């Protein structure tokens, strides 16, 4: 599987539609404190099926919807699209038209999330399975959040053992 692009719309501080191309090799993401870099990782983990608001620095899942600023009103929904390609796994719940697949998660204020794969509505569980077949998930050790290394260092050995289960 290849991750090709991530598109955000109304997700946290990315109120305007944003398109992040994910290219081969090493891509650096830079900018001042508070400008939105970690929000990009939150968006990726969210569209992959992350369901614990606290692990995305929120109290409830609606906290990912753009909450407004002095100049802009709050939004009523948030949507993230992840385009992946080169799927070898056979557990694909939908037929891909070309070699790429679009996974979409949309949340409406006070009414929860809807997932789609190639336009067809699916369960959250199906999205997570799609990624699990390719050795990745919203809690993969390959997705290292800010401060997560400190947790790995300070956590109890029994909780640290869980990182091995991802490799098993």
């Amino acid at each position: 599987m290849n991750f090709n692009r991530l598109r955000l719309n109304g997700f946290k501080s990315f109120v305007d539609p944003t398109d992040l191309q994910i290219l081969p090799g090493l891509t650096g993401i830079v900018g001042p404190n508070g400008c939105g870099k970690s929000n990009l990782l939150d968006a990726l983990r969210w569209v992959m099926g992350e369901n614990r608001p606290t692990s995305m620095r929120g109290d409830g899942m609606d906290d990912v919807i753009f909450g407004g600023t002095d100049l802009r009103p709050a939004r009523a929904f948030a949507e993230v699209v992840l385009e992946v390609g080169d799927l070898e796994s056979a557990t694909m719940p939908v037929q891909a038209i070309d070699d790429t697949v679009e996974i979409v998660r949309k949340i409406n204020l006070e009414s929860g999330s809807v997932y789609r794969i190639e336009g067809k509505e699916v369960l959250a569980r199906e999205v997570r399975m799609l990624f699990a077949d390719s050795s990745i998930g919203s809690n993969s050790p390959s997705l290292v959040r800010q401060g997560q290394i400190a947790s790995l260092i300070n956590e109890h050995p029994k909780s640290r053992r869980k990182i091995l289960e991802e490799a098993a």
Partner: protein
Amino acid sequence: GRGKLLSAFNQVNQNFKELFKTLFGGGSSNLMFVESQDPLEAGLEIMCQPPGKKLSSLSLLSGGEQTLAAISLIFAVFLARPSPICVLDEVDAPLDDANVVRFCRLLDEMNSKTETRFLIITHNPITMARMNRLFGVTMEEKGVSQLVSVDLDRAEELVEA
């Protein structure tokens, strides 16, 4: 269950020992199960011996040394089962310049060994300079994020808000 975890442990431990040596320029290390005979119940301890120093558990090391050891573990697991994408959010913050360079060389090595695409969030100019490309996130309008392409040479300006 148990067998799979033990075989993963052995592979990860092997990778961890090698990556630790690479990042520390020597020394030795190993992972071990503690507190229980059953790997499904046990804790994972990290023993480290930086070059010239005594073997001790992770908790007795300095902040930067602990970070390097943790990075070694994360990539040890990664190599055992590479993922299509890897995102690191400011993992280089506690590292001094020499260790940032070693970390970047490790990224080059992981990049050459796998098909994985890497997204590296950083404030560090050394790390930035060693990326294949840079995307900047700005907030020209307060509270509203925008993504922009950044010239590797112009990186400095973007970091200094």
